[in-house]
């Protein structure tokens, strides 16, 4: 996962409120190197006695040179935080914040074009590389196990669901990436699938999609044309009614292509093994890896 696994893997955390601080501690427990924090009113103080907190991302970058930025800033200010990190040349940004206005994200997306920064999220659980003890986000560290299956999902809880099943069956993960449930996000299924295809440590790919948009179809197209590794996928939202947002801002059926059935058909056509329910993902991966 060379694109997400930076050599030094030094992480900056922006937004050290109640949730941000709690999650930062969990990242540290997992083994992540958190080198600095950014908070407007806590500048000059230390987090956990030894991690310096700065008033701006630029200062934090100058003093601690992080590669990765993790954002817990509240929604009204989150887009600005992303832009601040882009301007400071952070290579990978994970934005966990939920509920960022769509208009803010389309501007961020436009601003990102041509820049070297990769954005994951917003409204996502972030990513985790078990072998590297790198956890950037909120995926529970206790459920993962180092191994060779790459997991990518739009939904946080379903990412955990898939990981738990794999770990229970003794199947470890090369990396787990939650790309988030918003319609406008930085990293797509296609981006992560490309990374897994290139990654030497990944032998098989698990993808969990949901209703809404055409991102799963784009992934199916990519898998069909340029992925050699086996893929297991599950799509949730078969029972969702048209026109109603199912919690995730992106999970809404608008037009035929947004339907679960359409997505499943495209994936099947690309040779992907379909788990009818996410609860069957572990078993499907097990069968697939045995055949190999």
């Amino acid at each position, binding site marked *: 996962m060379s694109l997400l696994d930076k050599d030094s893997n030094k992480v900056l955390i922006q937004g050290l409120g109640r*949730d941000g601080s*709690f999650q930062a501690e969990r990242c540290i427990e997992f083994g992540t190197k958190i080198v600095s924090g950014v908070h407007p009113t806590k500048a000059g103080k230390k987090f956990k006695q030894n991690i310096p907190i700065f008033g701006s991302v630029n200062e934090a970058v100058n003093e601690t040179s992080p590669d990765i930025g993790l954002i817990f800033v509240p*929604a*009204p200010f989150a887009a600005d935080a992303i832009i601040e990190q882009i301007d400071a040349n952070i290579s990978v940004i994970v934005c966990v914040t939920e*509920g*960022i*206005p*769509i*208009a803010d994200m*389309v*501007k961020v*997306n*436009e*601003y990102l074009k041509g820049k070297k920064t990769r954005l994951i999220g917003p409204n996502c659980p972030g990513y985790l590389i078990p072998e590297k003890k790198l956890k950037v986000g*909120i995926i*529970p560290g206790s459920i993962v196990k180092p191994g060779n299956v790459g997991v990518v*999902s*739009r*939904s*946080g*809880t*379903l990412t*955990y*669901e898939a990981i*738990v099943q794999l770990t229970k069956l003794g199947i470890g993960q090369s990396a787990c990436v939650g790309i988030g*449930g918003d*319609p*406008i996000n930085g990293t797509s299924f296609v981006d992560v699938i490309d990374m897994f295809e290139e990654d030497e440590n990944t032998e098989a790919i698990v993808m*969990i999609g*949901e*209703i809404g*948009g*055409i991102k799963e179809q784009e992934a199916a197209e990519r898998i069909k044309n340029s992925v050699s590794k086996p893929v297991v996928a*599950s799509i*949730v*939202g*078969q*029972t*969702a*009614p048209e*026109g*109603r947002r*199912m*919690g*995730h*801002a*992106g*999970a809404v059926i608008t*037009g035929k292509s947004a339907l679960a059935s359409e997505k499943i058909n495209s994936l099947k056509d690309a040779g992907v093994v379909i788990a*009818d*329910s*996410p*609860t*069957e993902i572990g078993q499907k991966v097990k069968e697939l890896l045995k055949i190999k």
Partner: protein
Amino acid sequence: MQLHEYQAKNILNKHNVPIPFGKVASSYLECEEIVKSVNGRSVIKAQVHAGGRGKAGGIKVVEGSEDAKKVAKEMLGSTLKTFQSGDTEFPINKVYVEEASDISRELYLALTMDFDEKCPVIIFSTEGGMNIEEVAEKTPDKIIKIHVNPLIGPSPYKIRNLLSQLNLGKKVSQQIFSIIQNLYEIFNSLDCTLIEINPLAVTENDKVLALDAKITIDDDSIFRHSDIKDLFDKTQMNQAELKALSSDLAYIKLDRGKVGCMVNGAGLAMATMDITIKAGTAPANFLDVGGSASEERIEEAYKIITSDRDVEIILVNLFGGILRCDVAAKGIINGFKNTNNSIPMVVVLRGTNSDDARLLLEKSDLDISFAEDLPSAAVEIRNKLGIS
């Protein structure tokens, strides 16, 4: 958040988008007065949050004030169900009364977010007045789109190029040019996810008017539009959904299902709904209690689900992370104690403090069976509902 036509037209008017003369009325007397001042043919439109009003009888043309009084009397206080609204009946508390226009042509104009291209898009069609999805399907070449760079806004040259293809005449084209720019101003300043003008009418004497207007505002942006917040019409929402909203629960009532679902996480909630189909039945609702739900919030969720008359069984599926299962269990037990409303439950608990939660629930008087995971929960539901 959806606005009513009268609210949308008020915004259009403020931004110099031409609309026919019209006023909103809450009583038939007010309606009669407005029609008198129009002094001619008028249109009375039910103000509900549902599309397809015309076909459902929610739009009526009246010839004079007597006629208007009669129509308004019938409409106000009644409900409207359209082909787009499913089983929901929308209460008509207000009607919009508008001067009828002599129309020679109906066009279509909308601004929305294109999630695939990740930018705003202007959609224009010469085939206005009808269902635009149908136009898109049957004659896709009649739909023209202009993508907008959100950092720049709509480039005038792009709008000019669009209009020059259409042969609408100089007078009409000039008006549409300004209308598009003014609508984008609204779209941008109010954080809209949709502005739809269907039809955008051209009158006999070449005046362009917005005959209908639909505006939807991004819910996540409401924090910066305190004036818009007040336009929210609570009566147009399912009352259980409204209650859920005030407790920070993402709840959606679904038609014709029997299984009440209580889940944490939107993705897991959808997967849980899907599993009810495997059990040979259907979900009665979508409910995501959120990542860090409190005892009170879970209690509220329990109350909302158990007060739904369609619910015959409840499926609880909680994966404790930040959420603690024991806290959730206490919320469920409190809900039961305070309502004395017991419906059989199938419960799947995993993650943080799930063992403690199970002990608490076992000690309660609730009718509960536990399942290891969703597939076994499906089997349990089948048994309990007697589905063979």
